[in-house]
């Protein structure tokens, strides 16, 4: 009861305070919402962008690295295949060359042997022919001599044969 006499019921606002509260709060809203909080939202967005951008950049770099790796792998495989092919080719070439050389050598030796045989045969033929002619001549000589001397004496006959034989020997020695 004494309180009522003091003037204020707590649920009845003092109108001057309503005015002060309104102005003060309006000022607070104006200053913060104009100068501070929009920048804070911007900073928020910038930070989100920075983080998401960083993640995106990392992903891009990762993708690029993967692609490069794949490319290198493909290249390496290609190089390996090529090297194997070159080796195979070289081996095949070497084999071919060897075979060719061998064949040529064999042909050469055959040719040389054949030529030698032919030359030998020709030589023999010639010798045989010459020998035959010479033996014939000698036989005729001997026969004519035997026939020429048959009329002379026994002693002369013996001498002729002796001479012929000596002549034969000397011809053989020569």
């Amino acid at each position, binding site marked *: 009861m*004494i*309180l009522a006499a003091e003037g204020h019921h*707590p649920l009845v606002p003092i109108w*001057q305070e309503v005015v002060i509260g309104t102005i*003060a709060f309006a000022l607070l809203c104006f*200053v913060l919402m104009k100068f501070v909080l929009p920048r804070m939202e911007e900073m928020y967005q910038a930070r989100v962008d920075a983080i998401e951008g960083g993640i995106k950049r990392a992903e891009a770099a990762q993708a690029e690295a993967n692609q490069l790796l794949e490319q290198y792998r493909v290249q390496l495989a290609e190089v390996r295949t090529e090297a194997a092919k070159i080796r195979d080719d070289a081996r095949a070439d070497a084999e071919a060359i060897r075979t060719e050389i061998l064949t040529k050598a064999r042909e050469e030796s055959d040719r040389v042997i054949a030529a030698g045989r032919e030359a030998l045969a020709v030589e023999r033929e010639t010798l045989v022919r010459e020998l035959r002619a010479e033996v014939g001549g000698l036989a005729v000589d001997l026969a004519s001599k035997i026939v020429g001397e048959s009329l002379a004496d026994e002693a002369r006959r013996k001498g002729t044969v002796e001479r012929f034989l000596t002549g034969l020997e000397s011809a053989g020695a020569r």
Partner: protein
Amino acid sequence: MSRELVAAEGLPWPPSVGDFYPPELAGPWVTKFGIMVWLAVALIIIFFMATYRNPKLVPTKGQWMAESVYGLVRDNIAREQMGKEGIRFAPYFTVLFCYIAVTNLFGITPFLQISPNSHIAFPIVLAAITYIMYIYIGVRKHGLGRYLKQSLILPGIPWPMHFLLIPIEFLQTFINRPVTLAVRLFANMFAGHLILLVFTVGGFVLLASDNILIQATSVFAFLMAILMAFFEVLVALLQAYVFVTLSANYIGSSLADEH
């Protein structure tokens, strides 16, 4: 008994509503409460201006603190209550939250010792802003007719029920919401101050007793006062959170397409 104690010690016992109305300093425009409100406004502006003068992507400690407040209101209140659209309102809610929290905390600030919100004029201002905001936004989005229909008529109930429900919904949306918003904040701060007065002043009253045993019990009164002061910190922040959350909820319901 108490009357005699007041007479003996000059202590205002028991605590009364009169304690909430200290004498004016210089007319009705310059009072302790008015000065406290200006002080709160100044402190908040200085804090934000100082910490956000030169914001960096990687924040300093002060900037981080300012951003934490904004982040709390933005993500845990505005977005939670209103979805994506709430972010648009986050700056206002942040100002509202800081203002209520600081003025509430004046209740346990040495030398001030009382929250301006224990005078109902200040909560009324804040509740009125929320009230005007959610009605204005609702009408602007849906048009007056559709907004009223949406607010008052619940879909999918038998039509005779509307005779009962429309008045209830009207009372709920257009009377109870702003009144409870203002009274809840006011009553919490009023009661909080009263409790602190009871235990501190009561402690001194007990200490002034002639009986040594009664004097000894004053220790419990002071301990309780300290405990309640900590409790008041919790209440101060919680009431700021509740006020802003409910405001966001009301504005969100005006923006919603269904009841």
